[in-house]
């Protein structure tokens, strides 16, 4: 829905519900910063939003080439936003390579801003283009604005005495200034950011401020744009909000868990994309007593966390799929010695090194089963960037209450994607009770709590509790090394029962939408957004469709089997080859069908709509 007004200068201002904008350029063009700044500004204004940063694994591929293209997409709206958007309303392409890689996603008649100064013969050749798209009419279906971004930025900063290289680095702020004009947004927030970011380099503060101001003024002064847009604030539930990405939310969630449990947090980690930001963030929280240990490898990362947990800290390790593969044996040790531990796997495309910066959810089976022998581990998955905060707290709670390692499966999309997040009231955060064993009378290291089956947490330094644990099979109750056949079977079953029993301690699956009927969609992880968006389509209003989004993948909610049976069909969309659907079929004998996308990108709403239509039409 759009209403249009005309201002005194004869320019139109159109009010829209929603807009999707994408900044793309070379890896060195600062597109991630530009996108984040635009995001923060629309967030502060009160729009609901979702973002999709999309960058190459190479830090700086040769400038201007196709592999070097980096992009950042923001979907902002006065309505609820669940995805970064399938297609974009406005595309800012800083060079031919960026144009070539992104133009397919621009809506017909969409706004296209290109940097005219970067469309020379050499630039075109680097992008493997044979003709100049600005001249060859291939862009006729769009509203093309060819702007001399480089030249105009240089002109604006002429008097600063900076070298051309430094000046050219400011052209992303020129483009950002244009977008602020185009969407009627204040530049104040980004001014503040520039001031803080370059506080030690006053010349750059001035340069970036001036470049952005110049971009804004350019739109105002020239009549390039006859129209600008306004997207009113969204009706979010009352509260104080901030913008948050999944990795930030995880880091803060673990700090909150540490505070609520009254235990120090120890992170053992080895840098790996896309998980490293959690290490960076937690390393800064020394004021919370957080110990971060950048280990020599993935194995030392997890084992140091086990050592810290043995000593009574919250042991945490963060990684991605290849790293979790390396941690496998140590995770089995944590299962055997029954110590609390949290392992975060921020999934990326695989196998092997795969697509380090792209998203995928293909580590589910690794998380569930990827260890030698019977080594059950609870598995949780956040649904949105903000949910990562709650999942971190919940994983810690379960780990401590049940004395088990717990896996969190996030992914690259949640990790880097951002959304407005309502800041919780800290007095309302869940408690995480901790009980260290103190009583030496008849102490047995493997005597279990009858309810939770957890063994006592008996930390070194406690008088009278000296005892030995290890990876060899334990005798039930005493914890002594024991190889007896029946004891082994009993211990294997006890460890499994302990994890199964967590199902009593987690919420039931409650379908959103129809409680029974034609179709149930079951999902997990970051697919929550696009599925929710697809199900809002008018197309499905005559169908009885339910949606269960699983945050707990092991154990599954105890009523899930009943829910699955209430629908004629079950569809499980996943960014893998069908891992959850396999588990559901095996466990519940349900004829669920998968819908799989393995492109390193999240589902589009339109793709899901089509698939749902197709499934509904099946006999």
């Amino acid at each position, binding site marked *: 829905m759009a209403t249009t007004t005309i201002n005194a200068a004869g320019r139109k201002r159109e009010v829209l519900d929603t807009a999707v904008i994408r900044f793309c350029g070379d890896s060195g063009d600062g597109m991630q910063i530009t996108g984040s700044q635009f995001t*923060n500004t629309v967030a*502060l204004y*009160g729009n609901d939003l979702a973002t999709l940063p999309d960058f190459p694994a190479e830090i700086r591929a040769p400038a201007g080439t196709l592999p070097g293209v980096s992009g950042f997409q923001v979907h902002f709206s006065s309505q609820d936003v669940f995805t970064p958007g399938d297609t974009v309303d406005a595309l800012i392409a800083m060079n031919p390579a960026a144009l070539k890689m992104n133009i397919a996603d621009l809506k017909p008649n969409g706004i296209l801003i290109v940097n005219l100064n970067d469309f020379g013969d050499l630039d075109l050749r680097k992008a493997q283009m044979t003709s100049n798209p600005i001249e060859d009419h291939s862009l006729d279906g769009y509203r093309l604005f060819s702007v001399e971004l480089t030249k105009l930025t240089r002109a604006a900063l002429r008097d600063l005495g900076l070298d051309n290289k430094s000046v050219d680095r400011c052209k992303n702020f020129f483009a950002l200034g244009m977008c602020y004009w185009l969407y009627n947004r204040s530049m104040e*927030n980004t001014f503040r950011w520039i001031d803080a970011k370059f506080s030690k380099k006053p010349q750059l503060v001035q340069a970036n401020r001036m470049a952005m101001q110049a971009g804004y003024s350019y739109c105002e002064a020239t009549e390039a744009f006859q129209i600008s847009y306004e997207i009113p*604030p969204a009706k*979010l539930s*009352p509260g*104080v*909000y*901030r*913008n948050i990405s999944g990795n930030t939310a995880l880091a*803060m969630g673990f*700090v*909150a868990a540490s*505070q609520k449990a009254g235990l120090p947090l*120890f992170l*053992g980690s080895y840098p790996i994309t896309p998980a490293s930001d959690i290490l960076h963030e937690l390393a800064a*929280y*020394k*004021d*919370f*007593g*957080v*110990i971060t*240990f950048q*280990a*020599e*490898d993935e*194995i*030392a990362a997890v*084992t*140091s*966390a*086990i*050592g*810290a947990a*043995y*000593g*009574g800290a919250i*042991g945490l390790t963060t990684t991605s799929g290849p790293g979790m593969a390396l941690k496998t044996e*140590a995770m089995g*040790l944590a299962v055997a*010695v029954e110590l609390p531990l949290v392992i975060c796997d921020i999934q990326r495309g695989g196998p092997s090194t795969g697509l380090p910066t792209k998203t995928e959810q293909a580590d589910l089976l690794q998380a569930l089963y990827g260890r030698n022998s019977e080594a059950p581990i609870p598995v949780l998955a956040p649904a949105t960037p903000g949910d990562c905060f709650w999942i971190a707290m919940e994983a810690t709670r379960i780990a401590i209450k049940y004395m088990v390692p717990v896996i969190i499966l996030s992914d690259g999309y949640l990790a880097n994607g951002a959304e407005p997040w309502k*800041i919780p009231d*800290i007095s309302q955060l869940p408690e995480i009770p901790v009980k260290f064993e103190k009583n030496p009378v008849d102490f047995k290291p493997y005597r279990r709590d009858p309810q939770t089956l957890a063994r006592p947490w008996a*930390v*070194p*330094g406690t*008088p*009278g*509790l*000296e*005892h*030995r*644990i*290890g*990876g*060899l099979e334990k005798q039930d109750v005493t914890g*002594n*090394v024991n190889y007896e056949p029946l004891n082994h079977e009993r211990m294997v079953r006890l460890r499994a029962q302990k994890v199964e029993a967590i199902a009593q301690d987690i919420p039931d699956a409650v379908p959103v939408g129809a409680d029974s009927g034609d179709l149930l969609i079951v999902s997990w992880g970051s697919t929550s957004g696009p599925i929710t968006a697809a199900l809002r389509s008018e197309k499905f209003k005559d169908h009885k469709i339910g949606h269960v989004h699983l945050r707990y993948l092991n154990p599954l909610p105890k009523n899930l089997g009943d829910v699955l049976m209430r629908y004629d069909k079950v569809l499980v969309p996943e960014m893998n080859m069908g891992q959850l659907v396999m588990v559901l079929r095996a466990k519940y004998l349900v004829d669920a069908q998968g819908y799989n996308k393995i492109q390193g990108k999240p589902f589009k709403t339109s793709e899901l709509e089509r698939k749902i239509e197709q499934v509904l039409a099946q006999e």
Partner: protein
Amino acid sequence: MATETLPVYTKKDFQTDQEIRWCPGCGDYAILSAVQSVFAELGVRRENFVFISGIGCSSRFPYYMNTFGFHTIHGRAPAIATGLKVSRPELDVWVVTGDGDSLSIGGNHTIHMLRRNVGLKVLLFNNRIYGLTKGQYSPTSEIGKKTKSTPFGTTDRPFNPISLAIGAEATFVARSVDVFQQHLKETLKKASAHKGSAYIEILQNCNIFNDGAWEDLTEKDARSEHIIQLEHGRPLIFGKNKDKGIRMNGLDLEVVQLGNGITEKDLLVHDEAHPRPAYAFLLAHMEERPGFPTPIGVIRSWENFTPYEDLINSQIREVQEKRGKGDLEKLLRAGDTWEVRA
């Protein structure tokens, strides 16, 4: 906290009720006995001792020590112990490992623990063989050694554990022998007093798969000719008649016969605390050379480098003093926020 007097411990207080499952005659028994005796004298409360081990015969050690103990996975004991020590620096954490565990599968963790100087005491049981897997060669097996996995002799050049530890910037490196009980106990005490990583190679016999591993050094008659006992501040003298010494010759060491104008004054005086590792390297490589003795005792003990756990924890304290203790409310509300009103 109330100060409690330290109980008087005896060796018995450190024995467990577990049946010891090493082969009869194994050198590990002697090491266990020495450790149990020494622990009674260290002035540390029993509940503050922790033994962490990896995998292998040696790594069963914690089951037989009545302290806190954690038998972990192959090669990873230094990393697990690091996590424990940095989060609980007040504990007295000991690592028990073997030549395969520490120098093969756990080589990476060993060198990084040493370069960080984590305050861990590491007992490396070196028997130059894989015992628990029944007789394959290890990274310290001598070249050409015939074992189950090398029927025609090994072609691997072995590690010299002392040299490796010094190369990894270890601040305390020592060597002792399973059967030299008194020497072993003294060495353990010195290691215990060291601030930072202490790496002790204990030459240990595997009477099943590598019997006589160190016979050259332990045979009563040969002992004094083949071993030199290092003592800080004392000249390097060895031999049955204390008539051989070691002196510098250019950038190298040489063995000399005392007499004929050569006196103790010409010999090198052992300086375990020398700030640079070059001298320790020379000592480490003596044993490979014909006519040179194998040094035992403290090869290097250098305390001018703060232990890792102290650096980590003092950094946390400094930040807390500067910023104040973390406030969760402030953390969650950091950066740009906006309010949506009802």
